[in-house]
């Protein structure tokens, strides 16, 4: 009794109520589901299971999907903190466990609360490229996402009836009588005011960051992790040539592109050889897994033309290999559908200039609807498979 009385003295706001918690929970349910679906999509593209073929069109689909993933994750920060604030008095409830069922319910909150905070904290740290956590970001973010959503599903099951009654109260005989009474006014902020403040937090965070994806907002994005107009040749890079350790190999005058694998004749082409082949242009985005994206006008040789020159079967897939000695992204694969797209190029130029070293000079892959890390830079070999 004493502890309960103390708790009620500490947490006096009427906003620690079921209806406020249900509203925030519903909003978080939408935002976390959006993040989970778009994150899972990105994972499937990066680690495609057999028979999974991510389409080449629409060209900007990944740009939108990953932009939504990151923007929704950022906007979820105030929603999650507000939700935790609303239900925080329950953390100190006395007795801590009322029954086995209540104990299990509380136990499932650890993966939900800890996992949710983990996802937003590590996601933000990844945007800031601050890898202080001592584990691989993508693999761990992916695994904990499933655990968090598991906690979310268990929580929704436990709270569904209460939340439904709070969000959609049953009709009463007296239409003027509210089924779920509003919190008593005690001089504090109303529920509408509180939810408005949380919405303002989400809105401002979105406004000051979304310009890395939504370019008209660029001038307002004073906290955007990237500026889509800053970088060599006017757009960003994730890995520089120095960082990738390819400067000497990429600038070697003896550079040649090899086309081999299941081919009738192996090709070995110099840069002049490549420039003498039919050139094609395409305006395509670099769309990074970190949510930023930037379009550019690319010019180069169709990968399909090179495979045809080498006599590879039309059904073949292709593996594109970079000069990078050690990187999980030193190769990327193109399925037949992607190879058939006329905009799938090995680019020699961007925006009318030879590629900058940091953009993959002398040769990079550029193709529609692919994550940036699969637009392999410093390409030295194409293997028909």
């Amino acid at each position, binding site marked *: 009794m004493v502890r309960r009385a103390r708790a009620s003295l500490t947490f*006096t706001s009427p906003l620690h109520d079921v209806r406020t918690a249900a509203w925030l929970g519903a909003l978080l349910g939408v935002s976390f589901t959006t993040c989970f679906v778009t994150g899972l999509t990105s994972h499937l593209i990066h680690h495609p299971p057999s028979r999974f073929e991510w389409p080449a069109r629409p060209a900007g689909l990944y740009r939108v999907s990953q932009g939504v993933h990151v923007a929704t994750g*950022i906007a979820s920060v*105030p929603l999650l903190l*507000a939700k*935790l*604030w609303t239900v*925080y008095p329950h953390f100190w409830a006395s007795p801590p466990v009322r029954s086995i*069922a209540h104990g299990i319910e509380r136990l*499932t909150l*650890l*993966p939900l*609360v*800890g*996992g949710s*905070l*983990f996802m937003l904290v*590590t996601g933000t*740290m990844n945007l*800031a*490229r*601050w890898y202080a*956590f*001592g*584990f*691989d970001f993508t*693999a*761990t973010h*992916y*695994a*904990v996402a*499933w*655990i*968090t959503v*598991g906690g*979310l*599903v*268990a929580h929704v*099951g436990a709270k*569904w009836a209460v939340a439904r009654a709070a969000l959609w109260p049953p009709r009463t005989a007296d239409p003027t009588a509210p089924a779920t009474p509003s919190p008593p006014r005690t*001089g504090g*902020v109303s529920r509408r*005011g509180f939810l408005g*403040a949380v919405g*303002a*937090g989400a809105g*401002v*965070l979105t406004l*000051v960051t979304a310009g890395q994806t939504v370019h008209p907002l660029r001038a307002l994005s*004073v*906290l*955007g*992790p*990237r*500026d889509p107009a*800053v970088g060599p040749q006017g*757009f*960003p890079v*994730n890995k*520089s040539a120095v*960082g990738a350790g390819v400067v000497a190999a990429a600038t070697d005058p003896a550079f040649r592109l090899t086309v081999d694998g299941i081919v009738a004749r192996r090709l070995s082409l110099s840069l002049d050889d490549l420039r003498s082949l039919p050139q094609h242009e395409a305006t395509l985005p670099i769309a990074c897994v970190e949510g930023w994206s930037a379009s550019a006008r690319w010019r180069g040789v169709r990968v399909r033309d090179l495979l045809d020159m080498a006599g590879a079967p039309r059904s073949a897939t292709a593996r594109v290999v970079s000069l990078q000695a050690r990187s999980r992204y030193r190769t990327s694969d193109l399925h037949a559908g992607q190879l058939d797209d006329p905009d799938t190029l090995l680019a020699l130029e961007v925006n009318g200039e030879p590629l900058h070293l940091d953009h993959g000079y002398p040769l990079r892959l550029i193709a529609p609807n692919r994550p940036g890390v699969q637009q392999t830079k410093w390409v030295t070999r194409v293997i028909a498979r």
Partner: protein
Amino acid sequence: MTRGQLVGLAASAPFAAVGVGALLRNADATHPARAVAWIVGAAVAHDFVLAPLVFTLGALVRRAPLGRARVWVVTGLVVSGVVALWSWPFVRGYGRLANNPSVLPRNYGMGLAVTLVAVWTAVLVMTLVARRGGTGRAERRADGRTPG
């Protein structure tokens, strides 16, 4: 145990299994002990550091005689707190790379300052508007006219 709780637990099991499986299967990359430490650590940091700070601040604001400005001041505090907390690693610039100036290309300290000035300017304007509206309504009531 309610039916909803049972259904929720049953439905959550496959998600949890995939997650734990991915965590353990790629242990070289995920370092499960570190990952769990971060999950628990995040919850502990929230429940025992961040939340008490916010509740202390909330208690101070609750006692302040803010009148009609209260909702806007609270909104300003919520927005400022969230933006400052989220942008902290950017302001500190831990992830900057000497060989890649396109990573974290902005002056984030300045960006945060500009954002806070804009937020509190909006709070000031909305407070003045609310006060003027309140005064107007009070005057109309004094005139015997019904508000709105």
